[in-house]
């Protein structure tokens, strides 16, 4: 099921509806062949998360996704003890404890006897695996997607280090959990802040930029096979020009697709100043941006 070559990656990703450039395919191939995590950087909306999903589809694996945010801690990302369950068990076995220490002659013997039972409360039974631990304990291999890792706190990176280099997690109470299967790991970053060197060293790096007009046309065509060639070309040209404007949020690939869908629904056959003006709010998400684009309308359609 694994990829055989760079071309194989490219071909199979296309079958999973993801058009990959040679660069993407090469990095995915070498990373998967050597079990290395991939750190993907790039502007918002160029398909960083999609890539992970497409790889999962190709390999017929499940995706386990961890969305990072400020304040994410190990109890939400790695594992957590089920305190309520632990407490319930202590209440329930309270009576049984008497039978355990019944035949103990001295106090110290009784303590020894209880001590030998103690592990029962910090064992696998009470552990609740969170995404990172789930990924390595899963019996069938998965794709682990750690999304927007740059949004997390610097401390959180420390939890990731052990997982990324050895695919294991150390739980202080019960020891190191070894991987059952090795997951394919993707980390995505919007470059809100720089990642630490230790994290970068453990990953290999991939930068995805806005696609070339030809590739973007291919992508839209893949999603909307009925679109006319002339209209598609006009749309992509206009999108490329809008990206060149001084605006707050540049339109990404999904916005090109949405725009094409909207224009199809309106039965548009040709892009004119009027149609652009009417549908501009599909592409641009800020009022200010729309204003800027409207001023430059002639340049966009021209």
């Amino acid at each position, binding site marked *: 099921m694994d990829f055989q070559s*760079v071309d194989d990656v490219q071909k199979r990703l296309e079958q999973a509806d993801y058009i990959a450039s*040679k*660069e993407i395919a*090469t*990095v995915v*191939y*070498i*990373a998967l*062949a*050597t079990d*290395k995590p991939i*750190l993907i*950087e*790039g*502007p918002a909306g160029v398909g960083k998360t999609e890539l992970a999903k497409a790889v999962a589809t190709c390999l017929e694996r499940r995706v386990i996704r961890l969305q990072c945010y*400020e304040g994410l801690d190990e109890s939400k990302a790695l594992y957590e003890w089920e*305190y*309520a369950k*632990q*407490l319930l068990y*202590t*209440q329930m076995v309270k009576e049984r404890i008497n039978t355990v220490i019944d035949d103990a002659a001295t106090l110290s013997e009784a303590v020894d006897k209880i001590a030998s039972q103690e592990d029962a409360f910090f064992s696998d039974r009470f552990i609740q695996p969170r995404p990172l631990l789930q990924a390595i304990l899963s019996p069938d291999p998965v794709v682990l997607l750690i999304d927007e890792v740059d949004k997390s706190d*610097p401390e959180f990176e420390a939890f990731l280090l052990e997982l990324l280099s050895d695919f294991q997690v150390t739980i202080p109470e019960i020891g190191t959990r070894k991987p059952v299967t090795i997951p394919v790991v993707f980390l995505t970053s*919007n*470059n*809100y*802040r*720089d*990642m630490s*060197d230790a994290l*970068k*060293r453990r*990953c*290999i*790096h*991939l*930068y995805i930029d806005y696609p070339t007009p030809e590739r973007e046309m291919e992508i839209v065509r893949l999603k909307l096979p009925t679109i006319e060639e002339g209209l598609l070309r006009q749309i992509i040209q206009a999108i490329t020009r809008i990206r060149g404007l*001084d605006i707050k949020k540049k339109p990404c690939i999904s916005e090109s697709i949405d725009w094409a869908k909207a224009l199809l629904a309106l039965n548009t056959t040709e892009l004119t100043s009027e149609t652009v003006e009417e549908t501009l709010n599909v592409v641009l998400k800020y009022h200010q941006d729309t204003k800027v684009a409207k001023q430059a309308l002639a340049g966009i359609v021209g």
Partner: protein
Amino acid sequence: MLKILTGFAACCRAFDLRVSTSEVLDAARHLELVDPLDPREFKLAVRANFAKSRRDQSRFDFLFDLFFHGIRTDKDEALTPEIGKITQALRQSLSDDPMEQALVDFLDNEPLAFIDQIHALHTKEERPQKIFKSNMGQLSSKLGVMLQINAIKSKIMALLDQEAHGDLGDALKDHFTERMNRAFALATEEPREHNDALKEKSQAATGENLLKDKPFANLTALEVIEMRAVIEGLVRKLKDQVGRRFAVKNRGVIDIKKTLRNSGKFQGVPLNIAFKNKPPRKSSIVALCDVSGSVWSGARFMLTLLYSLQECFARVKSFVFVADMAEVTELFQDLDINDAIDQALGDDTINRNAPTDYGSSFQQFKHDHMNDLNQKTTLIILGDGRSNYLNPQATILGEMRERCRRIIWLNPEKINTWTTGDSEIASYKTHCHEVRTCMNLNHLTEFIEELVL
């Protein structure tokens, strides 16, 4: 192959790309998987391992181009022994100067020493200059290298003319000229980092009718007083916001998990009730404010902003600079707002008649206050980046970036003037996370809202 790779890794390290041994190992393993003779796949495999962020990629591309295309051109087989002979002859006539040695090594396909020295030159720290300031330090040392390159070039040409090389003469001349031109380019050009994630906010001045739209520089004396009232209102709002965050700290729902865990100590009786706290974010701010003549009108408002920041956040350090840097955190803590600003702008704190020098100010900050920056610090720089054509020393800002969370630069000028005259914003912005115009009250309000809310 491995030798080439380690050689390249050494060059990368000399040029400030952090390439560890494990990354070289990974790259070697990855090269076995791709077709190493395909130049594109080769480069991709090496780059994925050596340049781990978009910022590093331009530096990597520059070095890769130099190392694999510039100096490893597979020239005529017949040329190689001749080239060896000439470099041998050159070596005998050399002085002890390390740069000359490095240059001949460079001719001999050993670029490491040369790259190392050139990089040191690019990132050299200017010595603090007190009385006469000039930016000649870096230029003159570069000039020295250029002269040395030319001297060696003429030596080679003389050597080539002395001996007859038959048909190879022209080819040899071409080879050495090309190589020396590369060395020359390396000494004079400097790669800049990609900074795609940079948020640039250029706000248009929307007219001057309303007080909040008027640039700070155009305010009349009366309006300045009016403005203070408005800013006070802004600060009150800011305080409310922060205050609310502290207020909710000890309210809210019971944290069942923590309560149960606490109750473990008391045989399961929940004696100690824990709440789901929302402790305020513990970010800290370091602010540097240019108070020189060119930003005189804006400086007062910037200082007001600093003052209010310090009231709202627990950990704020404020500095003012012209050619030197001085800390004003304590002034702002102890004094009333107007007195504090007058003091900060007074002559006791800082010499405001000196020409602005961002480079030396940054340098001073690096030496005295670098430990104030950590992974949770937001560094805010307020200033126009006009540094009187003195050495900007942007690499220091790069070092600061590595130590802090974000760098935000507030510029009181419109974006279309950033590239004019002695403004160094272009070289500084490669190291910033965000550069934005802040020339009137509107911009200031917007910035504060984004920062806090």
